[in-house]
Structure formats: structure tokens, C-alpha cells
């Protein structure tokens, strides 16, 4: 294992410290407990948006803290949810009195820790609403699992709910917009190689040179099944089919197409996937109105990608286009 680290146990602290030094005009980094807040938090009269989760998915979530998106991000250890003693002070720090929305990816650990923190915040008089993101169609049988996971759609929920909060929507309205995004987005991912958690020291699963893992999450956990390697168009078709079927995409639908890199795949390859996905959507009579291509929710150095499709309406499009100024996403300002 070769990694640009000093000490496996200091990875998150040192990385977050560097993030704060790199973006002092955007964020404030609090240490012990660790959380990152928007520089001007709490923004008067605005609903606060807090998200968090295990580290190793950068730029998610700290990279999305700033105007028009998150007010706070709470990083846990690598692939481990943060704890209530971090989530609570982050929630209090961004509460202007208008309440706080927690955006939580549907993993057992994240749900339990955010649930506890929300209870504690309510006990301190802060209204909290939780938007649970569960866009992963790879999980077929939610009855017999912990349910669909939150993956690529999380980025879109954070951007669009962030825009709703920025324009002055109240607590219930911001949560409702977040839930509407979640209800209209589906994602499926593939790994060409595994990733190595720094303190574990060996890859999270073993994948032969000629195999790929379909339906991976974002934690280096194995996916649903593995198949022999195929070309980019074949893999794209395989990922997109269940996404479109589950969403019920029909002729005339307008969508946002998000091709996300898992950390170890070059942008050039992501655009090859994007190209094919546009062809497939056009074949269905759907129009790609907005796009996002890049490494936004990653699994360390994993090779692979995920494809997310969000069905748009006029309001979601307007909120997507609204100005955003964060370390990882910026337009309109």
C-alpha cells in the first residue's frame, strides 16, 4: 500500500486541517470535535443544512460547504459515520433560529448517529428535520437489507436543498425539496478495482484483473455481483438500465445526468460513459437538460463510476442553476 499519508490514524485530522488552510475564505474548521462550517454561519434567518458521514468520499461533504449548499459538514473516520458529539455542535453552530436540516445517507451507522444528535438538538430547542438519501438501485431487496444506500444522489440533494435554503424557504419547505430530489433520483455504480482503507492496509475486496463489481456502494464494500470486464458502452448500459427502469423514465422527461468518478478513474473515461448515457437517454426520448461529470462522491482511490439520473421539473432546474460557491462546486458567483 502506497499512500500520501503520515500516520493512518491522523489521516482525517490532517486532511481536514489542510482543507481549512486551503479555503479560509469559505469555511471554518473546528477541531475536537471535528466539523466544518460555512465562514458566515449562522446565516441570519436561513435554515441550516448539515450533512456528514465517513471520510474517504471527498469532496463530499466538506467540499460542498459554502453559499448555496451546506452550512456544515461533519466528517467521521474513514468510512465510519461521525458521532453525535460532533453532529450536535455542528447543528447548533449553524442554527440561526430557523431550524436545521440533516441530510443523511442511508447507512445504519449514519442513521443511528444522526438520529441521536437530532434528539439532543431538539432537547436544546433546535428544530431538526432529516432528509434520508437512498438512491442506490443496486440494493434490490430492501425488505431483507438495511435498505437502499445513499450514494451519488446525495450531491444533488445537497445542492438543490441548499439553494432552497439560500432563497429563504422555511424548514419544512427545505426538507420537502430535499425529499423531492431523493424521490426523483436513482443511482448505480461499478468498481473496476477496490480501495484500501488506510488503517486496514489491504484492499477492501479482491477483484481479479478481468473482473468488475456491479452495484458497489461508496465504502469499498463489495457490490451485488461480479462479471467479466466489458467495454465502457456495455458497462454504461448495464448501470443505466436499472436506473431508468426504477425511475420510470419516459419519452419527454427532462433529466439531470450525473456521471461520478469513484476517485481512481480519469475524467476522460467518465466522459466516455457520459457520452453513451446521453445516447441511451435520447433513445428513450428523454432530454438531458443539466449535467455534472467528475469526482464528487468517491471511495478513496477506487476505480469506477456511478451514474445518477434526476428527473427535473422547472423548480428543481431553477434551484440547480442557483448560485453556489463551495470548494468543489462553484457557479453563478
Amino acid at each position, binding site marked *: 500500500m502506497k499512500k500520501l499519508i503520515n500516520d493512518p*490514524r491522523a489521516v482525517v485530522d490532517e486532511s481536514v486541517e489542510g482543507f481549512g488552510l486551503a479555503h479560509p475564505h469559505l469555511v471554518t474548521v473546528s477541531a475536537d470535535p471535528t466539523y466544518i462550517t460555512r465562514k458566515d454561519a449562522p446565516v441570519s434567518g436561513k435554515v441550516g443544512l448539515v450533512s456528514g458521514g*465517513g471520510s474517504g468520499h471527498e469532496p463530499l461533504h466538506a467540499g460542498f460547504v459554502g453559499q448555496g449548499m451546506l452550512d456544515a459538514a461533519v466528517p*467521521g*473516520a*474513514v*468510512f*465510519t*459515520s*461521525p*458521532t*453525535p*458529539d460532533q453532529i450536535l455542535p455542528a447543528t447548533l453552530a449553524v442554527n440561526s433560529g430557523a431550524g436545521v436540516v440533516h441530510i443523511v445517507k442511508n*447507512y*445504519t*451507522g449514519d442513521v*443511528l*448517529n444522526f438520529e*441521536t444528535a437530532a434528539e439532543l438538538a431538539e432537547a436544546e430547542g433546535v428544530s431538526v428535520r432529516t432528509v434520508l438519501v437512498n438512491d442506490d438501485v*443496486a*440494493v434490490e*431487496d430492501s425488505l*431483507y*437489507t*438495511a435498505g437502499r*444506500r445513499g450514494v451519488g444522489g446525495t450531491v444533488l440533494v445537497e445542492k438543490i436543498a441548499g439553494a432552497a435554503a439560500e432563497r429563504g424557504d422555511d424548514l419544512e419547505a427545505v426538507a420537502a425539496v430535499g425529499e423531492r430530489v431523493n424521490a426523483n433520483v436513482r443511482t448505480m455504480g461499478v468498481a473496476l478495482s477496490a480501495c484500501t*482503507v488506510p*488503517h*486496514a492496509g*489491504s484492499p*477492501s*475486496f479482491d477483484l481479479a484483473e478481468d473482473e468488475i463489481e456491479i452495484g458497489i*456502494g461508496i*465504502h*469499498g*464494500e*463489495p*457490490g*451485488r455481483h461480479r462479471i467479466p470486464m466489458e467495454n465502457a458502452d456495455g458497462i454504461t448500459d448495464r448501470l443505466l438500465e436499472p436506473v431508468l427502469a426504477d425511475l420510470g423514465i419516459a419519452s419527454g422527461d427532462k433529466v439531470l445526468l450525473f456521471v461520478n468518478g469513484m476517485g481512481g478513474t480519469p475524467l476522460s473515461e467518465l466522459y466516455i460513459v457520459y457520452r453513451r448515457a446521453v445516447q441511451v437517454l435520447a433513445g428513450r426520448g428523454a432530454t438531458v437538460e443539466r449535467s455534472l461529470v467528475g469526482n464528487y462522491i468517491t471511495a478513496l482511490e477506487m476505480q469506477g463510476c456511478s451514474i445518477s439520473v434526476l428527473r427535473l421539473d422547472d423548480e428543481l432546474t431553477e434551484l440547480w442553476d442557483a448560485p453556489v460557491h463551495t470548494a468543489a462546486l462553484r457557479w453563478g458567483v
Partner: protein
Amino acid sequence: MVLDVNWAVKWLTLSAQAMAEHRVELIELDRAIGDSDHGENMDRGFQAVLDKLAEAPPQTPGAALKLTAMTLMSKVGGAAGPLYGTAFLRAATSLGDSAEIEPEAWATALAAARDGIVARGKAESGDKTMVDAWTPAVEAARKAAAAGDADVLTVLVAAAEAAEAGAVATDPMVARKGRASYLGERSAGHRDPGAASSALILRAAVGAAA
């Protein structure tokens, strides 16, 4: 042998040792069906428990378990933090302020801990989770405690042995809760890491009384 605060502190100390000694083993179990973090998180959490116990020595077994609960909840993260935190908190509440734990009270505290895990994690027996170590342990402890002249060591041993057997019994199970559930059938053939760490903790309880 009495289960007093000295026993409780020794139990937690031996638990921390067990997590450190089995850190890599737990990481490997989690690597197979999860995300490789369980051993690391448990080791970090119990080291923090030792620091807290040294900072503010508890006066009763219940107080020691409550301190452990709060520390694990705030230091472990993942699912294990809230689940173990809830387990220790419920056990602490069940024990109350008593200075010594009778066999029956220990069995009741274990049951409270198990109920807490079930309430938080919503897992049932057979879902391939730590519940599959805790439920047999509770049953064995109750049975041992119900025997007329039960001594505490017998009860602790019964619980530890049942938890160990329960952890082994998770090997062929297909996970229905937690991150391993995403693997479906492919989760069979691997031991659940949470059941394994639970068995280590209940075994440490025996060591502290020996």
C-alpha cells in the same frame, strides 16, 4: 468473588485489551463483508474508555458502565458506537446504584443491553448481527442464574460461552441488517464482526472475575 466496581473496571480494561489484541482480526472479518473499520473503531473506542476511567474513577459498576456507554457513543462512530453505547447504557440503568451485582441482576442487565441493541438496530435473531451473540448469552445467563445456588462466575462463563457459540453460528447466515446485508447470499461463510466483538467483551467479563 463479587461483581463490584473493581470487577467492572477490570472487565472494561480487559475488554480494551481484547479489542487491541483482536483489532486486525476484527478488521479482517469486516473487510470480508463490510468496510474494514470495526476493529479500528472498537480499539479506538475502548482506549478512550480507559482514559475516561482513569480521569474520573467510577464508584459503582453501573457508573462504570454508564461512563463506557457515553464514551463509546461519542468515540466509536459507525453502527457499533450507538449500538454498544445503548447496550452499556441500558445495562447501567438496569444495575442502578447497587454496589454489587447478584447473578440474577447480571442476567437482567444483559437482557436490558440486548433489548437496547434490538431497539436501536432493529435486528432480529438470525439477521447475522451482534444480536446473534447477545440473545444466546442472555438466555444462558438467565438459565444459569435461575439455578438455586448459582455463583456469579458460573453465570458469566455461561454467557461468554453462549456468545462465542452464537458468534460462530453467524458464519453460515445471510445478513439482513447492516452493511453486510448488501452482499445478499455472498455474506454467508463469514463471521459477523459485531457478534465476534460481543463475544470478546463477554469473555473479558469472565477474565475479570477469575
